[in-house]
């Protein structure tokens, strides 16, 4: 009697295991097919890559040693990169916070307006900053201005999303209590919501500061200022030794930014 029940349970367990193994197998097959299909469509083949290895070697040989003479010319573009990232992170805060208030479902004044704002934020962040930069460069010309504006547009979309999601996750208790005590919407936002989301906001802002520094190093590829411009020129002129110096400078500056951000995060939060 007990044996029969036990063996039935064992049978069930075995069936379950077989099923989950079959599922795993099917999923792996699906992934493998997708990979092979993509490799076929993109002409990605390993043998050719290995045969073409000498091209990569050749490039590497022409990159070293780095040309250190151009270091003095890198200061200006590097500072420009940092300035773009600073403004590209600070200005969106003042745009994204009010937009988040308009669209967070628990405090939004009007659902239609909220959805429109959400769509705008979605578009702003789905278009990559490099594409914004390119469009703005064709509008206002080369330089750091279109680059900074591109960072502002993209960051407004991304930070705005995180901002409203944070507000939506706020504990509704204190808000209800304030409303019951007769606080108006502005007071609820200022004294009920903002204090509780502030640490998260700090964290989001620091994250986007790092992100924007990284992005600011590449905006130069389309002529929108920063160190990317120097790098692109070096590569276009086949000055690979200069290019490597730029790359090293980029890696160093981004590492410093990451460390600073981690330090500030510990201090602030």
């Amino acid at each position: 009697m007990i044996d029969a029940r036990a063996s039935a349970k064992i049978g069930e367990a075995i069936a379950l295991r077989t099923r989950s193994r079959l599922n795993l197998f099917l999923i792996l097959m699906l992934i493998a097919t997708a990979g092979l299909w993509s490799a076929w469509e993109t002409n990605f083949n390993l043998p050719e890559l290995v045969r073409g290895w000498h091209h990569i070697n050749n490039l590497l040989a022409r990159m070293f040693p780095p040309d250190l003479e151009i270091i003095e010319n890198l200061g200006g573009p590097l500072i420009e990169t940092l300035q773009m990232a600073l403004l590209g992170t600070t200005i969106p805060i003042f745009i994204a916070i009010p937009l988040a208030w308009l669209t967070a479902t628990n405090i939004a004044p009007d659902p239609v307006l909220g959805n429109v704002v959400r769509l705008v934020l979605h578009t702003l962040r789905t278009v990559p900053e490099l594409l914004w930069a390119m469009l703005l460069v064709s509008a206002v010309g080369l330089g750091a201005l279109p680059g900074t504006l591109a960072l502002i547009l993209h960051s407004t979309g991304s930070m705005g999303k995180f901002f409203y999601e944070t507000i939506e996750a706020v504990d509704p208790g204190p808000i209800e209590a304030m409303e019951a005590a007769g606080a108006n919407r502005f007071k609820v936002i200022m004294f009920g919501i903002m204090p509780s989301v502030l640490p998260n906001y700090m964290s989001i802002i620091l994250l986007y500061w790092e992100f924007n520094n990284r992005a600011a190093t590449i905006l130069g590829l389309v002529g929108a200022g920063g160190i990317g411009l120097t790098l692109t020129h070096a590569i276009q002129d086949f000055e690979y030794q200069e290019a490597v110096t730029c790359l090293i400078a980029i890696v160093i500056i981004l590492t410093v930014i990451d460390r600073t951000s981690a330090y500030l995060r510990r201090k602030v939060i």
Partner: protein
Amino acid sequence: MARELETQAQLAIPKMPARFTAKRMLVAILVIAIYWWSFEGTGVNPVTIIEGMPAMWDILQHMFPPSLEDYQDLLKPALETVYIGVLATIIGSALAIPVGFLGSANLSHPLIYHPVRLVLNVFRGVSEIIWALLFVVAVGLGPMPGVLALIVFAVGVQSKLVAEAVEAVDPGPLEAMRAVGARSWKVFVYGAWPQVLPLYLTFCLYYWDHNTRQATILGFVGAGGLGVTLFWNISMYEFEKATTSVILMIIMITIIDRFCLYLRKKII
């Protein structure tokens, strides 16, 4: 007596911290100076922005309505973008497992993991598009350098995440396995990996989304995908065609983003 009471009352009131200390003033001045300098340096100010408004408006007018005449030409590059994203994610995620193992401080040998971590730092030190720029020089135009660029960056980030996840694993089972004589790769496969797997799958989904987004702009440097078309459209001032590409791109990214979100909910 009265005077004594007064002092006592004064003592009872906690001293308010000074609002304007010299240090705070200094920091405030420094911050204002840095911002002033940044506005100066980048040329961002109301005047330049207002001056640029007519040009931006002009471009917006050129962008709408979007031209639908050769939307069929967009399908191939759009699909290529998807393929680049899928392939780079699969290869990058697969490579991240062994590399992450070699780069974890608790399971790997110090002589291995320090160099591995250093290489990973370089891999994710520069953005995908810069890798793409270099690979285009090395292996020529097309989707191939794009895939390689995404793989290099994804390996850099995902291996680091795997390594950190392995380091954060509960050490108990690992020690037990070592005590009965398991080799370190066995400790990894049977001890650490089951604990890391859910986290790893989340990274993979995140990087699929991320790689597809990046794949749309890699074309700006000639590394395949929708970006190539977009770059030419904008360079030739055919903004009404560019809008069609941008809309297609937004739709594509939104679909993949939603799909990833759905899969993530299923996994966790």
